[in-house]
């Protein structure tokens, strides 16, 4: 898992920093919940931005509401980031679909999109975001999870609720469409 921009962690893994805050927040400790909100917002924002390109603020807000509403049901605080990713991707895709104009992409080749790389802060350049914005939402989601989050196809399939074969074909089209959008 590649997690960036979670704030000051003093060298500890982000889920180790988050775990005591999660437990306290689950007990209704509002101050801990507030600190957890500060900790996770950059991660949620980073996931939402490339998927819900034009609705990032709404996607972040809806994701955070869903995450904090569901927090009491999270049994293992160490699983926080994986669980947040599931919730956030679902909300970001839902938000992006509200405004997206879906267009079928012509399959070309399977070359990995060289442009799709985050900088050290986990942020995508405006050019990349612009290219992503021209892709159908389902392609954006699969590209973000596979290329930026580095997840394997089975995990991406589980996250998006589709068959692994569907991820493979979407990824093929997504890479082709990204290359096309990137080269414009």
């Amino acid at each position, binding site marked *: 898992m590649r997690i960036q921009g979670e704030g000051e962690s003093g060298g500890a893994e982000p889920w180790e920093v988050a775990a005591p805050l999660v437990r306290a927040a689950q007990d*209704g400790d*509002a*101050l801990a*919940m507030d600190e957890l*909100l500060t900790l996770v917002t950059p991660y949620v924002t980073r996931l939402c931005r490339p998927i819900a390109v034009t609705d990032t603020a709404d996607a972040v*807000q809806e994701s955070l509401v869903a995450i*904090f*509403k569901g927090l009491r049901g999270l049994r293992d605080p160490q699983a926080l980031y994986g669980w947040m990713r599931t919730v956030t991707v679902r909300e970001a895709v839902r938000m992006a679909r509200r405004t997206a104009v879906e267009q079928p992409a012509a399959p070309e080749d399977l070359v990995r999109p060289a442009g799709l790389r985050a900088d050290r802060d986990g942020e995508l350049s405006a050019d990349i975001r612009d290219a992503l914005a021209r892709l159908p939402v389902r392609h954006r989601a699969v590209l973000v999870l596979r290329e930026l989050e580095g997840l394997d196809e089975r995990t991406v399939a589980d996250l998006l609720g589709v068959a692994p074969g569907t991820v493979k074909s979407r990824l093929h089209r997504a890479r082709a469409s990204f290359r096309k959008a990137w080269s414009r």
Partner: protein
Amino acid sequence: MNSTSTAYGPGDPVLRLRVMAAGLRAGMYAEQRIDLPYDRVWAVASDLRAELPHLVPFLREFRVPPGDGDRVAALAVGMPGLRENFTVRLAPGWCLMQSRLVVGGMAAVPEGDGTRFAVLGATRPIALRPAQWLYGHLLGERRGRAFVRRVAERAQLR
């Protein structure tokens, strides 16, 4: 904490309080525009010692040091003589107050020449204790709207 460190999107404590309301299953949450400048509204909301007894029914006194701070100890004294310790986080546009039993929150952002103001009240998920009856009837949207109205009235006086 300040308004930029709490920010996502354009930086909005009111949106943040909405998330907290969802997480805390807040029994009271209200959000309204007040037609007064942010500085004037927040001057009331952040003056906890002087103003909170005017804003919260049955609260006689709220002893807290002045100014912003994180995890500041405070003491609430209720009308029947009930005392309860609170911990307070106060920053520009952002206030959380928490005891063993309840949580209160306020948030504000400038909106044009007015202010968007939000208030939150929640009980903590522990076994009901006798003192909680006091807070039960402080909750609800109607109570929230009344709170915002009182904030506006107090700000109008300044």
